[in-house]
């Protein structure tokens, strides 16, 4: 069995700063991490490897620095890594990103047929959750999104049964391989890297693929292949009125003054609050 996992290197958003004067994002010195959602996908693939001895190839489309993220995946136990990198790929929206990843997956499949392709639920920088569906459509594979559990996996009979988070419940789906699975967060926890894998990860040759290696149609990649474009970047609009500062010498005085003002400005609020508490009292508070 051969599994591909698509991962992305993203800025550690907790540490991004915006320049106070120019309002631009300060990228220098911002550490990068593997998109946290992709680790759930990788761990799920590693579990399948533990059970079946499957081979795992991780892929990313990104700048040369993304090599670091791939090596990290190798240290967790992935067998192979491919860095898809070419300057014509930059500026891609999700349509162009899924084109490049699908083209790379086709090339990989030709070398070593793929049974399963994992992606994360979404990235923390793009936050779109569109690349996984895009890959599935481009490859003509079944798409299983928001998967919380793989119940059955039978490579010999080419079938898979998963639990999928739907609105208001969990759908249990039976589908066929090869499939694209986007993993839900919180389903597992990435393992610690073992010593032998850490040594291997540091030494192993990574594959680097460019436009020729994936036989890319240049009208479909990068900015050219991206129908959506950013027209404007702006700061959020301040409201006409700034927040009213509640004055008071002690926390108690501030609290009292606030409630007075709140119930004066929003005269229905006090009654609504009482009524809400009455209803809760009848149902029993659920906290």
């Amino acid at each position, binding site marked *: 069995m051969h599994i591909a996992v698509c991962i992305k290197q993203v*800025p550690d*958003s907790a540490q*991004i700063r*915006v320049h106070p004067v120019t*309002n631009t*994002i300060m990228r220098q010195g911002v550490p990068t991490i593997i998109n946290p959602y992709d680790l759930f996908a990788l761990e799920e693939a590693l579990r399948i490897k533990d059970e079946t001895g499957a081979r795992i190839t991780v892929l990313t489309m990104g700048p040369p620095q993304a090599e670091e993220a791939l090596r990290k995946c190798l240290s967790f136990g992935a067998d192979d890594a491919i860095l898809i990198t070419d300057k014509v790929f930059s*500026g891609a*929206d*999700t*349509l162009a*990103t899924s084109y490049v990843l699908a083209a790379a997956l086709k090339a990989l499949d030709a070398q070593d047929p793929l049974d399963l392709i994992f992606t994360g639920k979404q990235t*923390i*920088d*793009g*936050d*779109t*959750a*569109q690349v996984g*569906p895009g890959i599935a*459509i*481009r490859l003509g594979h079944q*798409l299983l999104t928001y998967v919380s559990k793989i119940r059955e996996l039978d490579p010999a009979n080419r079938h898979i049964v998963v*639990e999928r988070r*739907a*609105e*208001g*419940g*969990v*759908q249990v*789906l039976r589908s*066929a391989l090869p499939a694209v699975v986007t993993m839900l967060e919180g389903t597992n926890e990435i393992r610690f890297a073992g010593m032998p894998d850490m040594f291997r990860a540091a030494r192993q040759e990574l594959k680097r693929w460019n436009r020729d290696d994936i036989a890319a149609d240049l009208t479909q990649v990068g900015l050219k292949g*991206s*129908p*959506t*474009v*950013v*027209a404007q*970047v*702006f700061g959020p609009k301040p409201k006409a009125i*700034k*927040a*009213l500062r*509640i004055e008071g010498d002690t*926390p*108690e005085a*501030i*609290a009292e003054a606030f*409630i007075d*003002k*709140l119930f004066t400005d*929003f005269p229905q*609020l*006090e009654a*609504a*609050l*009482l009524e*809400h*508490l009455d209803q809760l009292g009848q149902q029993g508070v*659920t*906290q």
Partner: protein
Amino acid sequence: MSDALDTAAKPIKKPKRVLPERFKSYKGVWVFIEHEHGHVHPVSWELLGKGRELADKLGVELAGVLMGGDGDEIRAITAEVGAHGTDLCYLAQHPVLHDYRNQSYTLGMTELVNTYQPEILLLGATTQGRDLAGSVATTLLTGLTADCTGLDIDPSDRSLLSSRPTFGGSLMCTIVNLATRPQMATVRPRVMPMPARDPARPARVVEHALQLDESAIVTKVLDFIPDARADKPQLPFADFIVSGGRGLGKPENFQLVAELARTLGAEVGASRPAVHAGWADAERQVGQSGKTVRPKLYIAAGISGAVQHRVGMEGADAIAGINLDPGAPLFDFANYALIGNVTELLPALDKAFARRLATARTQRAQAHEEADRGEV
């Protein structure tokens, strides 16, 4: 647009793209009517409210797109689609569409789009909406903007302006698609206000017979396990929310948020760092990558008000912030600034609210008593 955003930290001049002649026949605004087990997701109605506005600006019709299995239950929804402001409802019924499945719904939606050619297609950014939107956009090779918080029309070229936060914490961006049609966007539940419902308003129903074949649909639904509703936080529909952020400093302090929430019968919310620190459940995160809420009262304790948090809660009627820093971005859009330490202000608020509510209850009881006596 993950990478497009990367390159777009500075304002950019409007890109020079021309809409090819063949796309100019695309007309009308569509909203996908999402339903699961007979229940329409409210985000569909919210989108119809916004869709009405966009359609009026463009001078075109607003349509709801309803797909589902055979039977009157689905057909009955068309009346509701009309009541929420549409001109017409496309209805495609087929046994294959009984349950939502990616392949069958993607086939259905792409056929409808290719047949009737809308210029705009909006979907809820729910698990179903996102699953479908990404697949339909890729099949049609058109642009899709995810998780928008604002939608508008550029009158100069009739293009859809989709706004969403961009990473970095304090910036928004507007994304356009000048090269392909339809222009697609997904929008979070509770971002757009619920439109007024007019049950007398009729919608034309356009039935479309889809050629689908169950044997060609690979994925089968084996089971559906409904959530146990009672034990899940219902943040998006809560009227009262008290949220805590990184400013609380430690898990013990987050308890202060829970205590005030208990007094108010409020749901507990959290900023992303508070969730990451493990102080609150992921279900409770408010913001761009969490829930969007529209309560009557939102109290934000130790939350700075970064744009990703703001877009999730600025639809609240009244917003109060508790913060040491009078310059916190939250106060650019909140109603009330309570300047001070959360460890002091939260307990003070808890006591003051409890006292106030007790007094109000006593007064109400007395008023009732007097009224009763008056009647005798």
